């Protein structure tokens, strides 16, 4: 009984504190969605109305005068391909750096890590020139190929796989598995939570990417939603309503994909895969 009581005292503050922070964190998003359904008059009402009254779709009508669905599709397409390729190459390289011994390993890893700290603006101009010479300019190739140099994905998965017990690999070798089999059948299954984390991070990063698409894409039909939204923003500077509708639409596919993938986060680590 006393134990139960002290347990409750321990837990209640946790629920309250986390609850407060959730409200703070979600307010901007809820305000965005609410504002997107407000008509011109209720948007500018003083004091502000928390909920749209009357409920209006006029912001979305204004928004869809632009090819926003195509922009959303472009973003989904590019971010999905990049996520798959990044998780694939990072897990291979991360595993190699974490668990395999080969000459020059530490030097090669440090070279990667060093450049991870280099801000993207350093290579912005020369990379643009390279992409132009490769003929990738104003094409999805410009967005899809450079991320294969998945430096931080490699770093993240190296850190993650390092915490997995080496006995798993040794037992695989004793059983006569090839290195690729050890990687795909022993390491990948237990590294799943790490892969899911990397996958979602990558998807978010490339969905969020604004500066690079801005530099390499010119044709409106190849715009990502970010570019499209910024074009919209600079066309109607103070039209908060349509702006919030566009922002809502840009956030929606991400919310859906996150909800579909979050299961992998919740599975947690299976570090205890080797038990006796």
């Amino acid at each position, binding site marked *: 009984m006393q134990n139960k009581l002290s347990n409750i005292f321990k837990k209640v503050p946790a629920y309250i504190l986390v609850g407060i922070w959730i409200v703070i964190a979600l307010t901007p998003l809820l305000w965005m969605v609410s504002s997107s359904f407000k008509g011109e008059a209720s948007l500018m009402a003083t004091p502000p109305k928390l909920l749209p009254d009357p409920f209006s779709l006029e912001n979305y009508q204004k928004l869809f005068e632009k090819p926003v669905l195509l922009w959303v599709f472009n973003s989904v397409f590019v971010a999905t391909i990049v996520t798959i390729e990044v998780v694939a190459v990072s897990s291979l390289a991360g595993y190699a750096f974490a668990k395999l011994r080969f000459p020059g390993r530490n030097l090669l890893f440090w070279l*990667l890590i060093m450049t991870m700290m280099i801000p993207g603006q350093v290579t912005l101009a020369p*990379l643009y020139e390279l992409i132009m010479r490769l003929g990738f300019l104003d094409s999805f190739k410009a967005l899809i190929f450079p991320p294969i140099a998945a430096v931080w994905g490699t770093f993240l998965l190296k850190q993650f796989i390092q915490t997995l017990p080496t006995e798993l690999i040794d037992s695989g070798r004793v059983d006569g598995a090839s290195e690729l089999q050890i990687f795909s059948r022993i390491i990948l299954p237990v590294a799943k939570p790490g892969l899911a984390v990397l996958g979602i991070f990558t998807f978010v990063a490339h969905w969020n990417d604004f500066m690079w698409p801005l530099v390499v894409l010119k044709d409106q039909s190849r715009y990502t939603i970010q570019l499209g939204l910024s074009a919209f923003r600079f066309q109607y500077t103070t039209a908060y309503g349509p702006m919030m509708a566009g922002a809502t639409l840009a956030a929606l596919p991400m919310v859906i994909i996150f909800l579909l993938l979050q299961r992998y986060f919740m599975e947690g680590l299976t570090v205890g895969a080797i038990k006796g």
Partner: protein
Amino acid sequence: MHLMLKKSIHNRETVAGYLFIAPVYLAFILFMLYPLVKAIIMSFTMVGTDYVGWVGFQNYVTVFKDYAWWPSVKNTIIYSAVVVPGAIFIPFILAALIRVMKPAAQTFSKSCLYLPQVSSGLVMSLVWFWIYDPFNGLLNYLIGKVGIQPQIWLGDVKTALLSLILMAVLAGHGSNTILYIAAMGGIPKTLYEVARLEGANWWQTVRNITWPLLRPTVLYVLIMSIIGSFQVFTPAYVMTRGGPGLATSTVVYKIFNDLFTYFSFGTATAEALILALVIITISLIQFRFFATDVEY
């Protein structure tokens, strides 16, 4: 026999190691190392209408004499000095608190905290642009309720940078929280049980077990936060255009401006390389400071 087996495994590991890192490394050489070398050359070169060629450190001298450079550096440092500790400790505390909850509440909390991060920097900047609106903005309405005068958040030199900071701190910090929770799940439960048997309270457990064993994750979060906050760009670009005056001009905003407004590639690349040098130095110091392998 035993020695031969060891040797063949050693060779296998070498071959597999190189093959496994090959995709990342080839792309890394093409899209990272090569442009990096070109950038360094570019920073020592001038491409003008009347002169093209090697100019030594002249671009760097130009940067240091630029009236907009030092204010941008100052703004970036002030911004990072608040945002980085927030990005380390807020999600750590959230993660430690969330782990006390029931599983369903844990899942719910993680999802809620991550949701704002699912939205892009551009989206969040547009939303906060609207929240900071001096006439119909949500923030002025909320502070009005507790009797504070309305502010021209983004339009006032005194509050503009604070507004960018506030937006970054009052985030969900979901990705870092989830990383911490994932890492905390890797700490053996037996350690916590021993601590409980010895009568340790929640704070002592966090301080003496969770925090030290989470060092690799903390190191990762620390480095990524510094790199991120030193490169803050989108809010400054979308909400304030670096203004008013130079009040929210950050280093990367200035670099972007020099590249695409003034097309001074040499100075802009020199600025980016100075930033890179600072970030690398700080990160290396942290690595030496924090990098100890944790085994459990």
